């Protein structure tokens, strides 16, 4: 458009070269770094614990288990310890970390708010409440899927409630979102307390386990449930990525650009519920993963969702893997609840984000 000569000239004079999209180098470095760290930590983590196993030995056992090597084990019990206890736990950490982190990323996109997170807004506690109901009323005996299903339904309902309650005019205000989270968390805590009161000792212990969050006792059977849920959800998340980007403009503008806002919103809410509940049903409430990881990843590769979802999945997996390693090994002979750890780190982080957000947006919004 040459009609605006004066402004066009000014633009040329001061213009940075247009081919300055976020450097691909940074992206490559991030993905390589996260992948390498994930593998290294997985091997190291598998070797640590009461029975110390060298990373090389872990690797051999891994190959043996997959039928790729027939070198004999150097010590007894190595294969048993790794394959029945540590490997499933590591795989669970990776899957659940990825699930929670991607759930946070999607939630932040549809809520158009960087503070939305399944734990913070109460979806996790809602899901835990659903799971607790099946425990106290003895419905768990039938199948692993019952608890997962109940926590999914409760989580889905909670996500809907939070979504409807905290939105106005196509955006979510921070205050409303946080207050809605407080209300939902309070209600869920009350419900859990009631169930704890009603339940027998065994159920009580299980409910407490849920509230604190732990990867202790992960089994392959559970992974068989989580893995397909996470895999399918991730595929959907990638498909939605471009449209989630447009939500940053506000729902009205997204619609003007051809996005079927209602459909994307519903699919996203279901994805958040599936991912959160897959995690909660087997590991309890692990908060803040979905808050910290996407935020850090955005700082490195920017907010475009295609890259962000992949990076968040890797980053979440790594974070939970490391957190679980700490949970298992920080105190000798004790297994700390991992939800407690993520909250201890995530709470202050949330506070910092909140303050930054307030400053950045020129007030609460």
């Amino acid at each position, binding site marked *: 458009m040459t009609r605006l000569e004066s402004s066009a000239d000014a633009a040329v004079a001061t213009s940075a070269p247009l081919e300055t999209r976020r450097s691909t180098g940074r992206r490559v470095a991030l993905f390589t770094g996260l992948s390498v760290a994930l593998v290294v930590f997985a091997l190291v983590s598998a070797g640590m614990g009461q029975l110390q196993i060298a990373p090389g030995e872990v690797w051999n056992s891994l190959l043996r288990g997959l039928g790729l090597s027939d070198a004999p084990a150097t010590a007894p019990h190595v294969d048993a310890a790794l394959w029945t206890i540590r490997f499933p736990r590591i795989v669970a950490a990776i899957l659940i970390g990825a699930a929670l982190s991607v759930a946070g990323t999607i939630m932040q996109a549809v809520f158009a708010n960087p503070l939305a997170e399944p734990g913070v807004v109460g979806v996790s506690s809602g899901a835990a409440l659903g799971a607790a109901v099946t425990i106290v009323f003895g419905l768990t005996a039938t199948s692993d899927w019952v608890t997962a299903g109940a926590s999914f339904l409760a989580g889905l309902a909670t996500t809907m409630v939070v979504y409807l309650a905290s939105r106005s005019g196509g955006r979510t205000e921070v205050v409303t979102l946080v207050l809605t989270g407080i209300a939902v968390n309070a209600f869920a805590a009350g419900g859990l307390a009631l169930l704890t009161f009603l339940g027998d000792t065994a159920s009580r212990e299980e409910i407490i386990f849920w509230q604190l969050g732990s990867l202790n006792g992960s089994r392959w059977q559970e992974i068989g449930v989580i893995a397909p849920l996470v895999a399918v959800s991730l595929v959907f998340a990638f498909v939605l990525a471009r449209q989630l980007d447009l939500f940053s403009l506000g729902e009205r503008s997204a619609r003007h*650009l*051809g996005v079927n806002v209602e459909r994307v919103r519903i699919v996203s809410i279901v994805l958040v519920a599936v991912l959160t509940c897959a995690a909660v049903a087997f590991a309890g409430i692990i908060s803040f993963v979905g808050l910290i990881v996407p935020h850090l990843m955005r700082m490195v590769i*920017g907010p*475009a969702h295609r890259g962000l979802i992949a990076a968040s999945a890797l980053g979440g997996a790594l974070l939970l893997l490391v957190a679980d390693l700490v949970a298992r090994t920080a105190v000798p002979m004790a297994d700390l609840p991992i939800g407690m750890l993520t909250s201890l780190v995530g709470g202050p982080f949330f506070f910092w984000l909140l303050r930054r957000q307030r400053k950045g947006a020129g007030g609460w919004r």
Partner: protein
Amino acid sequence: MSLVAENVSVTIDRAHLLTDVSFAAIPGRVHSLLGPNGAGKSTLLSVLAGDRVPSSGRVVLRDRPLADWPLRELARTRAVLTQEHSVTFSFRSREIVEMGRHPWARTSAEDDDDREIERAMTATDVSHLADRPVADLSGGEKARVALARVLAQRSPVLLLDEPTAALDLRHQEDVLRLARAQAAEGDAVVVVLHDLNLAAAYSDEITLLERGRVVAHGAPADVLTADRIKAVYGQPVDVIEHPRTGVPLVLPVR
């Protein structure tokens, strides 16, 4: 490609936001919507955009009711600049303008993306902001980036809700020159404005709204008379002819 509203009314809780409004945006013309606060300008624009379904009457885009248009095809045909320009997350200006190309993804027009984005950013004078996060920009800069996104959409019907709000003198003129340029290329342009003189200078036609009704429609000189402006806005004005161009100049009596 014309966009026509036929006898549109919008009623919410017995409040009549629009009453029996008819309106036509015609290719090659800049059509301004004027009126005091609360007259229904933005409501009419949102009806034209398809955001709001009128309680009665209908909106037709190229001989097809607006409601029958698939969203993506609609997005290739009409673009909307809303009054809200804020962006969540630190997307950079260029990324925002790129979003304007979304309706063309996976079509042959996708090949033109880079050219269209640069054209739009040059026209709105935001090329030098390409790498800046939109969240860090001033209000006027944000508005221009949003306008660049709308232009990059390359649709023949443009709906602009107060595109000059928050802009300085030169950029106000730039935006309306741009609207004229788009009309010269055959686009139908609808602009909601508050500045009567901008409207007088750049519009082919003006629709003046008051309390949800059309009080006047026509060429600027016919619509903007001193008596009518006083009656609608409640502010006495003098209307004189611009000594050089002859367009009406509206001067509040002070």
